[in-house]
């Protein structure tokens, strides 16, 4: 992995640099921002996050398990009360709902971790602590022959610091 890291102080400079990097196709672009900005999302144009599917699958599985657990236990050890159902779906909706929420939410977090690539053991190349403070960063991963062009492009758009990393 080899590339160039551009360090920006201004949001619009970074956005313009990303737009041109996408046009010129110099390499894969990773954007660092201290807070989510929709401008970057427009510039990078990523696909929709699949995290919602984790919620759907997890939530439905949890709901089914919640109902099943209560119904199975009632049938397995029946508490017979005259005229009353052994397994009653109305109170068991509480278990269906609670386990739906529990498993759905935990699956969502699992989806976040899987797709965001965390936990990560190392910071990997192309990270600078200033990106969690107030600055923006653009890491361009490209072939050795493209490094100079990428560096020139980042500087042209106002990068205050550009450095090669590998």
């Amino acid at each position, binding site marked *: 992995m080899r590339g160039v890291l551009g360090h920006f102080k201004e949001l619009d400079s970074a956005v313009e640099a990303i737009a041109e990097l996408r046009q010129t196709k110099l390499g894969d672009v990773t954007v660092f921002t*201290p*807070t*989510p900005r929709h401008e970057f999302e427009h510039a990078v144009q990523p696909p929709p996050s699949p995290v919602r599917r984790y919620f759907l699958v997890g939530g439905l599985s949890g709901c089914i398990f919640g109902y099943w657990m209560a119904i199975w236990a009632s049938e397995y050890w029946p508490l017979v009360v005259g005229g009353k159902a052994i397994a*009653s779906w109305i109170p068991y909706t509480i278990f269906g709902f609670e386990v739906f929420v529990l498993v759905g939410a935990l699956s969502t977090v699992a*989806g976040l*971790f899987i797709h965001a690539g965390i936990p990560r053991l190392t910071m990997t190349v192309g990270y600078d602590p200033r990106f969690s403070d107030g600055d923006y960063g653009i890491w361009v991963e490209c072939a050795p022959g493209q490094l100079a062009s990428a560096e020139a492009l980042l500087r042209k758009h106002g990068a205050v610091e550009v450095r090669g990393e590998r």
Partner: protein
Amino acid sequence: MATIANELRRPNIATANVQLPSVRDYEQVTDEIVGTLRFSKGWFAALLVAIACMLLGAATWLYQIREGVGVAGYNPPVMWGIYIITFVFWVGIGHAGTLISAILYLFRAGFRTTIYRCAEAMTVFAVMTAGLFPIIHIGRAWKFFWLIPYPNWRLLWPNFKSPLVWDVFAISTYLTISTTFLFVGLIPDIAVLRDREKNPIRKSIYAFLSFGWRNTEREWRHFARAYLFLAAVSTPLVLSVHSVVSFDFAMSITPGWHTTIFPPYFVAGAIFSGIGMVFTILIPIRKWFRLQHYVTLNHLDAAAKLALTTSLVVGCAYLVEFFIAWYGGVPAEQDYFWNRVFGQWWWAAWIMITCNMILPLSLFSQKLRRNPAWLWILSIFINIGMWFERFVIVVPSLSHEFEPWMWGGYRPTWVDYFMLLGSFGWFFMWFLLFIRQFPVIAISETKEIVPPRVRHAHVHTPVDAEDFEPQTGRAH
């Protein structure tokens, strides 16, 4: 620019405009919020007091385990007392956090941004506190696990039709999800702490807890989506938890308990008490940490309106209870409500009515809504009033059931009071430890409402008023 300046000067812009005019840039946000983690003698003294109270409660619990639960002042017919009251009280306190962080997030109520972290942490610690009380109440605490369904050699399962088992599921789910919500929101902020920390041990702890978060656009995209779904799923959860707690009462045929109004009444009361506790905690924090330009008067004003609204809902529920008792024509119910307000328990009922219905009416005054000192004093009254609300729900019903020969009284002992004190010590101990290690205001979310630094003023720059989304203050 002129339009924004006018908006900021307008006194009552509680929910829409969340601009922080005294905050210039992202670096200032980081510096000032991370600055709250510094050690101070006041914090240490408060922690010692909290630990002392907690230890007092713990020692009392040990005494109760040794002597039996009878030392706690339970005498027939009142076999639910301070412990169950305090359990419901703390569960209620735990509701404001998720309301502020999840429900107000979905409604794009901008004023939540700088107060939700405190409220979320408060929620987790309040539910942790609440969870202790059913265990304390059962006396033989080591048998508590019998309520949890697990495969066992006795082939026994809990009764899934019992409200107490519903409670176990509701509270444990709520604790898990609240903790998850708090921690997921903390990850980017822990990464900020990791990048600024000089102490190698603390740095490595923050590095571990931040999971290697790097602030990439990809991470933020998935984070935003996950956060949205967590908020969406927490919203019905927060409404369901106190409904389930109310079923502990409403499922019985005891006068005063057997009523369908309990779930909404409990939920409104829980949110009301939670906001009260948010004021109790947040107003001193904003003063001690000098965060008045983050938690502005506009924020307090908006939260006070929420408190006023929920107070009116709770007050309405009190009156509806009386109306239904009269209109229903059940003599035992009517007699019970008379006894509650004009008989044996008049003092508790009137503390409740004064603190929860009458004093919060002062929040109709904008001047008082924007007065932190009054809000703090009022919040103490709300906390007291909401504790007494639960007292009025639990004790008078049990002491005045259908048959006159069953009527009785209730007198808590020192064990009950020390345990109550211990619960406050336990809660504040965790909260104080939290604010020393983690930011009390969400750093990355606060940065979202601070205009970013730009080179060309009119390119995607929130300089003009029309560039703002009205609800969040974010740029289009």
